Every structure is written in structure tokens, then in C-alpha cells.
């Protein structure tokens, strides 16, 4: 009898040991993003290793790919309820995913973790709840070719629209195939509307929205910026091929010294330097309307982060978000990404070591991040619809009033 009791006790002990081990098993977080391939090899994995060391029992499996592939896979995951636990997000996608119920409410996760959100530079909210946090930001200031400026006799970078128009005219030398400005309006990648067109509105403190709805008609902020660009187009100071030009073509034109000025992401500084080490260029703020002395909105694109609603490990997922947003880690990440931090207390290394980035950081600190497309429904489609009407207007087939009325009508159909 005693023998059976001992066997029973041993069996129980074994069951408890195995059961305990099962209960305390590791949580594996899937983290789908396009960031890892864009960072130096092994750099992002090293940060994940640091997270795993700080959080025993949590393993991070990185699912990495190019931007467009990642987007398609996240869209598919959202449709089928199989989204990775943590996902890299672009602000243009957020509204659609929230409408589908694919993203977890980060406000609730922050509250549950008693997280102080005052350190966050920005939060993308819908209906009062946060669904995306920008981890690092790539701002879009104006790049100026200093050699072309000097050759054209321009002493200082333009600070107002009038100065910009004058500079663009002076820089343009069609005989030598040099133009003042470059405007990418490809319908394949319509982000030129956000970065190169609407940025003029935001730089003067304007807005294309009112009470959460599109406000393009009878909006002086928008119409003055559009008329300004039309003036540049009619003056022939914009590089040819604008209607099918993409962002990478724009950078190529500037890098090869065929364009005097462009609005572009800071992320391309190193690319430009690699492609053309001789190019002498500087960074400056986007010009504003005459007499405007308020803070200038600076267009930006973010590496945003969100948590999947279908995740079974939302608590652990939040720990990863919190880790990436902590001042120290955010400094490291923004330094290796050549981006501006999502934590207000972070200062990336390159600001002290690189004068171009230092100038850009000053522009960043004196202005404010502005991208009104972030969080809007079908944001990319809004840009494309605006783009089509804008091309008609530039081509002279539509009046300013008709263009803005048509764009407004097209946009409103997505807000009903």
C-alpha cells in the first residue's frame, strides 16, 4: 500500500512539474515590419535580443520584408484575423485597419500597464483611442543644391513662397537641362500629394481638414498653395515628367544635379551622399506664405507601431512597444535609422556629429510634425484622387474651383 502511495505521490509531483513548466512556457511574439531590411544588418535583431534579455520568457520572432510586401501581408492578416502580434504601421493604413477591428486599442493597454504617455512625441488616435504610435519619424524638409544656388547668384535659401518662386526661376536653365524644383505626381505612388503638395499648406500653418472632414473648397490655405504650384508649373521651372515621376526619380534628379531644390525625406541623405559624394547641398525649412511667422508644419512619414486585436499576448506585445518607445532604445533606433525619435526625451547621435542632420533637427524642433493624411480612411486613395484632379488642373483642363470641388466630392464619398 505504501508502495502505491509513493508511486502516486511521485506521479503527482511529475504532473505538477510538467504542468508548471507548461504554464511558464515562453511567449513568442511575432513582429511584422519592413524596418529590419532598411537598417544595418543585425542592428534591429540586436535590439530585440536586448528586449528578450530584459524580459525573460518573451521571444520576438521578426517577420521582415520590403514595405509594399509587408503592407500586403498585413492587409491579408487583417482580413483573415491572423495578423502578427505586433505590426509596423504607416499612418495611411491605420483608419482602414481600425474600421476592420484589426488593431488593439493602445490607450487601454497603456492604462493597464500604467504607462506615462507624456514622453511620446505623437499618437495616432481615432475616436479618442490610440491605435498607432510613431516610433521614429522621417521628416521632409527642403534640400537645396548649394552649387547651383551659387551659380545662379542666390545667396540664401528661400524662406517664403515668393523667394522660392524667384529662386526656382533663377535656377532653371533649360539649355543645360537644370530646373528649379521637382514635383513627383505618379499615380502609382501618389505620396507626392502628401509630401510635395500639401506640405506647402502645412508649412504655413494651414489645414486641408475642418472638423475631421475634408475642407478643400473655399479654403484659402489650400487654394493659395495650389495656385502657387500652378504658377511654378506654368513658369516651366518644374522638372519635366512630373505626371509619372515617383519619389525615387525625384531623388535621382536632385542627386544628379539636374534640380536645384526638392522636398524630400531625411532618410535619403546618406543615399544622396553615396550616389554623388561631390554634391554640395543643404537642408532648410519649407517656405511659408509672406508674413507668416508661426511654427511651420513639417511633413513626415513614420515607422509606426501597433498591436493586433487578434493577438493572444497583448500584454507582452505592449511591453515590446514600451521598450521601443523608451528614451534610451528610441535614441538607439533613431540613430541607426537616421530618423527623428518618437520619444521627446531622445536625441539621436547624428544630430551632434553631422551638420546636415543638425540643421534638419533644428527645423524639426522649431516646427511641428504635420501629416493630415495620417489616420484618414483610404488615405492613399485620397491622394490618388486628388492627384488625378490636380494633373487635370495643371494641364489646363480644369479650373481651380472645379478641381477642388471635384476632389472634395471624391473625398467626401469616403467619409459618409
Amino acid at each position, binding site marked *: 500500500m505504501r508502495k502505491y502511495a509513493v508511486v502516486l505521490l511521485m506521479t503527482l509531483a511529475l504532473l505538477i512539474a510538467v504542468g508548471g513548466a507548461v504554464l511558464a512556457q515562453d511567449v513568442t511574439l511575432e513582429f511584422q515590419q519592413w524596418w529590419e531590411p532598411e537598417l544595418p544588418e543585425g542592428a534591429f535583431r540586436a535590439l530585440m535580443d536586448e528586449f528578450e534579455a530584459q524580459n525573460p520568457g518573451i521571444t520576438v520572432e521578426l517577420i521582415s520584408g520590403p514595405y509594399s510586401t509587408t503592407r500586403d501581408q498585413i492587409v491579408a492578416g487583417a482580413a483573415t484575423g491572423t495578423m502578427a502580434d505586433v505590426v509596423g504601421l504607416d499612418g495611411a493604413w491605420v483608419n482602414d485597419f481600425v474600421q476592420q477591428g484589426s488593431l488593439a486599442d493602445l490607450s487601454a493597454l497603456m492604462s493597464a500597464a500604467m504607462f506615462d504617455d507624456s514622453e511620446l512625441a505623437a499618437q495616432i488616435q481615432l475616436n479618442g483611442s490610440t491605435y498607432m504610435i510613431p516610433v521614429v519619424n522621417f521628416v521632409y524638409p527642403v534640400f537645396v543644391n548649394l552649387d547651383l544656388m551659387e551659380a545662379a547668384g542666390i545667396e540664401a535659401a528661400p524662406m517664403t513662397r515668393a523667394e522660392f518662386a524667384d529662386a526656382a526661376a533663377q535656377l532653371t536653365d533649360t539649355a543645360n537641362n537644370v530646373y528649379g524644383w521637382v514635383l513627383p505626381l505618379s499615380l502609382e505612388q501618389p505620396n507626392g500629394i502628401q509630401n510635395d503638395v500639401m506640405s506647402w499648406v502645412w508649412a504655413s500653418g494651414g489645414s486641408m481638414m475642418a472638423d475631421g472632414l475634408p475642407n478643400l473648397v473655399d479654403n484659402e490655405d489650400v487654394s493659395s498653395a495650389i495656385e502657387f504650384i500652378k504658377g511654378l508649373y506654368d513658369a516651366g521651372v518644374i522638372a*519635366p*515628367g512630373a505626371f509619372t515621376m515617383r519619389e525615387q526619380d525625384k531623388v535621382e534628379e536632385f542627386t544628379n544635379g539636374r534640380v536645384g531644390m526638392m522636398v524630400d525625406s531625411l532618410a535619403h541623405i546618406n543615399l544622396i551622399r553615396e550616389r554623388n559624394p561631390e554634391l554640395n547641398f543643404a537642408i532648410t525649412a519649407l517656405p511659408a506664405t509672406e508674413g507668416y511667422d508661426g511654427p511651420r508644419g513639417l511633413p513626415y512619414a513614420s515607422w509606426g507601431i501597433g498591436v493586433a486585436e487578434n493577438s493572444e499576448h497583448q500584454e507582452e506585445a505592449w511591453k515590446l512597444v514600451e521598450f521601443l518607445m523608451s528614451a534610451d532604445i528610441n535614441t538607439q533606433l533613431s540613430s541607426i535609422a537616421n530618423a527623428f525619435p518618437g520619444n521627446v526625451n531622445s536625441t539621436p547621435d547624428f544630430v551632434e556629429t553631422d551638420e546636415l542632420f543638425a540643421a534638419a533637427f533644428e527645423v524639426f524642433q522649431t516646427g511641428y510634425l504635420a501629416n493630415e493624411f495620417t489616420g484618414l480612411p483610404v488615405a492613399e486613395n485620397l491622394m490618388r484622387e486628388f492627384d488625378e484632379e490636380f494633373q*487635370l488642373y495643371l*494641364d489646363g483642363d480644369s479650373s481651380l474651383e472645379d478641381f477642388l470641388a471635384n476632389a472634395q466630392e471624391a473625398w467626401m464619398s469616403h467619409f459618409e
Partner: protein
Amino acid sequence: MKKQFIPFAYLSPTLFLIAVLSFIPIATVFYYSLMDNVIITRTDPTFVGLSNYIEILSDDKFLQALRNTLFLAIVSVIGHFLLGLSFAMLLNAKTLNPITKAIFRVIYILPWVFTASIIAILWRLLLNPNGAVNYLMSISRLADSPTEWLSSRDLALNTVTFINIWAGYPFYMVSFLAGLQGIPNDLYEAGKVDGASGVQLFRFVTLPQLKPIIISLGMLDFIWTTHQFTLIWMTTGGGPIRATEMLSTFTYKLAFSSNEFSLASTTAMVILALSLFVAIFYVRNQRLSSE
């Protein structure tokens, strides 16, 4: 009774594959085209009958995409035929020695070796306002200012059609070359005895002998070209201002940019109907030629 099922048992793997790869996807897309709120909404799909079809068929943008697609397909088929047949006849000429023929065969077939993405990148670079084509036109005094081949509304559709013709003629060339080599020499000799000229031999011997290949290739090419997406998307994105919008790009934008999966399914069904229409002629032609 048991014997009756044996043929079906043999056919079952094929029937299963056809069902999984063809019937189920088509049936699903057809179902989506009759519904609203499908795939990525939290609300349940609702049956809307033919209203998606009415909406799509009365949409000016769709009709323009349809016109552009038909233009691309018809002009491409004609261009492919003319270029393919010309090059095939050159390669079939008896006056050329085998080494010259081999070299030209490699050169002529090159466009077919590239994928659509490579072709799009290549021609974007060549036709860029600062590209090689404009440079050559500039130094030869053919143009004073750069021509916007892909960014001009007047030129873009013709330009992408030209690129599509360039990319696709080698398939015709190879097929016609095989056809030409299969024409019995007796027919040409008999024609010559009857006093037929070179043009008459081409008209009354070569073309009738190639007719089955011409019809089959033309129909298949028409169907393939209506599905062309990568080349258009990567060169113009459907622009400028919808000048090169095709049914394929229109459908893609509806699905992945507007999230209008019901309407995208509807346009997909219209494309299917268009392809089926041509496919029926193709099958009938194949049946007649085999009889």
C-alpha cells in the same frame, strides 16, 4: 453500378484540381460581385444583386479603362503580328547563312527573355525626359525640348502600347518561324511554275498556311494583353490622368487602394466575360481546324 463510377474515379484528381484552382475562386469572386461589404469589413455582407454591375458599367472611369484596354489589346495584336511575321520571314530567308541567322535569332528574341518588371524599368530609363531616347533626338536635332513619352496624355497610351508590342513580338516570331519551316516547298515551286510573283506567293501560299497559327496566336494574345498589369503599373500607374488606365489597374486600385472589393470583383467578372467571349471563338476555331 460500380463500373459507372470508375471513369469518375480516374478523373477525380483532375476534377479536384479544376474545382480548387478554377471553379471555387471564380464562384467566390462572382459571389462577391453580387454582395456589398465583403472581405474586410466588420459588418456582414449584404446581397445587392446586379447593382455593382450597374454602378461599374455606368462609371466613366471604367469605360475609359475598357476603351484603353481594347486599344492596347487590338493594336498590340496587330503590332505583334506584323513584327513577328516580318522577323520570322527574315530569319527564314534562304540567303542568310546559318551563323548570321543564329545571331539575329538571339537578338530578336531578347525582349521575350526579360520579365515585365525589367522591361518597365528599362523603358522608363530610356524614355525619361533625361533618358537615352531624348538625348539621341536632341543631338540629331529631331526635337528642341525633351519629349515626355510617358507623362504626356497625348503620348502615354501609344508609348505603353509600343513597349508592349516590343515585349511580345518574339513569341509570334518564334511561332511563325516554326510555321514557315513547316510549309512544304512544293507549294512554292508549284506557284512559281504557275508564274506567281513573290507577293502572290506570300498572299496565296504563306498566309493561308500560317492561318491556324495566326488565329490561335491572335486570340491568345488578345486575352493575355487584356490582363496586362505589371508593365502598365510600373511605367505609368494608369496615368497621366487615367490616359493609360486599364481594366487591370482599375481593378487593382478598387481592391487595394479603395478597399472596394465588391466593385473590384465586379470588374474582374467583366474581364472574365470579355476573355471568355474570345476564348469561345478560340475553342471553336481549334475544333474546326482539327476536323
